[in-house]
């Protein structure tokens, strides 16, 4: 029973968080469209649902706080309060505080002091309005809204209490919506006292509610119990409402008003044992009611959005197991092919199985895909806050929020994106005066865009601000000894220096962001997700930062290459071409090592076996194969023994049981059960450039164990 409760609570928190996110995005949109009533209604609904559920689940702090918020929103709906930037600001802060409160309720911590301050502020908003009268009274007097009558029949699930719900709270909430003129409680299901189980809800109610809210909102009151309980809401006209009690309930009792329900319930419970009349044809009624409940449940399922919340770990386990299945399948396939060759037997059944397994894998991977919208929405808020804080005018636009990414990526891309957005708002976009002086519109423009391209996801952040100052970057990089005075760098290379660790051009680090500080963090985070980041910038015109991310972290197309007896995998996406070079195509450049000339283009040659410190059969490039690979706009040629083929590989993280290894992106398991290393192109390039700068390869500084333990047991 306790577990049950926990389950419902966690569902409440998840849903409340979603409502909060919707409210936040709604408020941000409202700023630009203050007259959008639908928007306002949806924000109100969010607050309302949270309030109701918080009350039901026993979080009075949350419920009270939301109540005030709801009141302000309600006034906005009625038009007595006009939404403006300041009001929305306050409301946004309220939404934040509500989030904090929910967090506190979740962990059981005491809410922080700031809550009461924000609440006061909100109350201030309320009292500002002279026409503020109790919500109830407002409802019947609200102009332009007709008061309608609904007959609400509520037959709670018999196990309602076990779910942590309390019908009294729901009925009270219902009373908040309008005026309840009639209340009937049906006690027919009550068993004799001796047979009564105090944890079972035997009662049901029929109410007549006069209200100006929509049927949908009445339905919302029962949002958390509608799955299991029967709720009927029938619109009745004024004339026939008097006949509400012509229902065949011989045993119903009329109760004057809702606050009496609790006491009445108690008295019924106390007296029901002696009142034999109550149990007459009880069984029949219950049957009928159950039939209705079940038909209602079926209906619910088909109407509601069909989603199932699944624990992430379970999903990961499923994907892992399916990954295993793919590997085992490949092994079986190999053995089967061998057997077929020997026996001359022909069969297609294994091919069918393989295809099904592949489909299954694809399907399982798609389970983890979620739209990036949530992350983008956070950015909207950040820009909004920053613009206010910095006194800038920024128009923020997002595109492609529906682009789907692996959940891990969506979760982890938030931080780097935030850094980028902050940088763009703080350093990119100028103040309105500066912009006008530069002949640009006062309002700056930042666009965040996500899109698919060639098996990758791109996230692009574009601003029309001042752009990067290459002179400053260059001199800073020289000063920091990141580059040398005589180094001849392309514009793009200079721009990308801002991603180098330890680079910062900020003369003063503002509390918002230090320029360049964080950009290396951005790169590190993105690389951890097997992606890359680059920047294009034009002085005075703005910059565009582009993040490239793999579609999924779990699987990739690989090119198998051989070095000595071992197999390595190259990410196929990075491979441009491969060929056996003629001896004259290989040139030694005095200080820059070896290069390959590919159709006039000079590409540095990296000997993979040297960088990785492993054995290889081929040391003469013209006897092996060079694979031209590209990473972040830079090409290099990798010398390998041979090409073995192309395959889809399931990426296994080396960090799971070991730690990160330079030049290696991960491992995978081949069809024959062997483990193969997946090469990290960027890591290899970095290994190569380190060995060039240091004059020695770092791999030679390999630590050797010098432990002496041989005498330990002597």
């Amino acid at each position, binding site marked *: 029973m306790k577990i049950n409760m926990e389950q419902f609570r966690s569902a409440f928190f998840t849903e409340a968080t979603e409502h909060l996110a919707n409210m936040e995005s709604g408020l941000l949109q409202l700023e630009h469209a203050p007259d959008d009533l639908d928007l306002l209604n949806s924000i109100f609904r969010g607050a309302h649902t949270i309030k109701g559920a918080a009350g039901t689940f026993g979080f009075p702090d949350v419920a009270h706080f939301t109540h005030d918020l709801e009141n302000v929103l309600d006034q906005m709906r009625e038009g007595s309060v006009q939404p403006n930037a300041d009001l929305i600001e306050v409301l946004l802060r309220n939404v934040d505080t509500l989030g904090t409160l929910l967090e506190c309720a979740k962990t059981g911590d005491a809410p922080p002091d700031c809550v009461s301050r924000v609440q006061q502020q909100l109350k201030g908003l309320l009292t500002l309005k002279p026409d503020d009268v109790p919500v109830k009274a407002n409802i019947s007097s609200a102009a332009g809204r007709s008061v309608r009558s609904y007959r609400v029949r509520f037959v709670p699930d018999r196990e309602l209490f076990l779910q942590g719900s309390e019908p009294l709270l729901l009925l009270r909430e219902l009373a908040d919506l309008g005026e309840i003129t009639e209340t009937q409680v049906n006690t027919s299901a009550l068993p004799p006292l001796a047979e009564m189980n105090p944890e079972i809800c035997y009662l049901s109610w029929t109410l007549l509610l006069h209200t100006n809210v929509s049927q949908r909102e009445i339905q919302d009151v029962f949002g958390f119990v509608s799955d299991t309980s029967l709720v009927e809401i029938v619109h009745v006209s004024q004339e026939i409402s008097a006949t509400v009690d012509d229902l065949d309930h011989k045993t119903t009792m009329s109760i004057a008003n809702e606050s009496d329900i609790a006491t009445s319930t108690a008295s019924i419970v106390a007296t029901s044992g002696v009142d034999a009349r109550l149990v007459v044809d009880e069984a029949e009624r219950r049957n009928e009611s159950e039939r209705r409940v079940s038909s209602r449940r079926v209906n619910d399922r088909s109407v509601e959005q069909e989603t199932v919340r699944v624990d992430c770990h379970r999903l990961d386990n499923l994907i*892992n197991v399916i*990954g*295993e299945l793919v*590997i085992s399948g490949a092994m079986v396939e190999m053995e089967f092919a061998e057997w077929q060759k020997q026996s001359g037997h022909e069969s297609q059944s294994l091919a069918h199985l393989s295809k099904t397994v592949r489909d299954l894998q694809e399907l399982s991977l798609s389970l983890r895909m979620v739209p990036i919208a949530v992350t983008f929405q956070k950015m909207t808020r950040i820009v909004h806050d920053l613009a206010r804080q910095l006194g800038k005018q920024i128009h923020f636009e997002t595109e492609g929020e529906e682009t789907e990414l692996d959940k891990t990526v969506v979760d982890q891309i938030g931080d780097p994106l935030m850094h980028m957005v902050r940088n763009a708002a703080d350093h990119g976009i100028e103040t309105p005066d500066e912009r006008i002086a530069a002949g640009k519109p006062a309002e700056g423009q930042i666009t965040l865009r996500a899109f698919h391209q060639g098996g990758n996801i791109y996230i692009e952040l574009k601003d029309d601000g001042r752009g990067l100052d290459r002179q400053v970057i260059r001199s800073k990089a020289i000063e920091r000894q990141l580059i040398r005075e005589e180094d001849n760098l392309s514009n793009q290379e200079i721009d990308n220096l801002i991603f180098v660790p330890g680079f910062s051009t900020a003369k003063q680090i503002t509390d918002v962001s230090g320029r360049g500080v964080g950009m290396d963090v951005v790169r590190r985070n993105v690389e951890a997700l097997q992606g890359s980041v680059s920047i294009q910038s034009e002085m005075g015109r703005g910059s565009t930062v582009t993040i490239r991310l793999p579609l999924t972290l779990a699987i990739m197309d690989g090119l198998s290459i051989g070095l000595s007896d*071992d197999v390595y995998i190259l990410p196929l996406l990075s491979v441009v071409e491969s060929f056996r070079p003629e001896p004259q195509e290989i040139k030694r450049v005095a200080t820059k090592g070896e290069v390959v000339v590919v159709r006039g283009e000079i590409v540095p040659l990296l000997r993979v076996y040297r960088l*990785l*410190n*492993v054995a290889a059969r081929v040391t003469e490039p013209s006897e092996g194969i060079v694979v031209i690979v590209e990473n972040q706009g830079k090409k290099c040629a990798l010398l390998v023994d041979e090409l073995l083929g192309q395959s889809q590989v399931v990426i*296994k*993280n*080396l960090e*799971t*049981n*070991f730690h990160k*290894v*330079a*030049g*290696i992106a991960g*491992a995978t*398991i081949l069809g024959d*059960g*062997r*483990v*193969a*290393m997946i090469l990290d192109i960027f890591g290899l390039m970095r290994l190569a450039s380190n060995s060039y700068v240091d004059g020695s390869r770092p*791999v030679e500084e*390999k*630590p*050797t*164990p*010098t*432990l*002496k*333990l*041989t*005498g*330990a*047991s002597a």
Partner: protein
Amino acid sequence: MSQNNKSTDRSMNGQVGEDGNQFLTFQLQDEEYGIEILRVQEIKGFSRITPIPNSPRYIKGVMNLRGAVVPIVDLRVKFNLPEMEYNRFTVIIVVTVGAKVMGLVVDAVSDVLNVGANEMEETPDLGEGVDTSFMTGIAKTGERLITLLNIDKLAGTDESVAPSVVA
């Protein structure tokens, strides 16, 4: 459950506990070592290992353990003993270190030993040149002296310890 916790605690602080414990003992050269049995996941015959480039010499590589990529440490190399050709007696003891799984290559597995508290001794000071940081203690059973190993230190999961163990 409680026993498991207790043993983990003990291995964490490297102290010999109050009461005894079970150890899996194995051979390296002509010496006998023991590791806590609760940390042993399984014992496997030697199978194909893929080398990990740019890794310390005692990391022999990684092995496919039913789909998991598990690093393999050669304890002979780690303890600076002469390396030996792997043969059909060579075994890999798969142990768990925190959330990680790794394999230890040893010459042969001997037996499972109950070591009472009175049979365990603190690691003696073996003087300069002998690193005792990954020893829990020494167990005496009859004529045998068994060096009890602290797997967490040995595997260098404790990041602050790792460099000193490796270097």
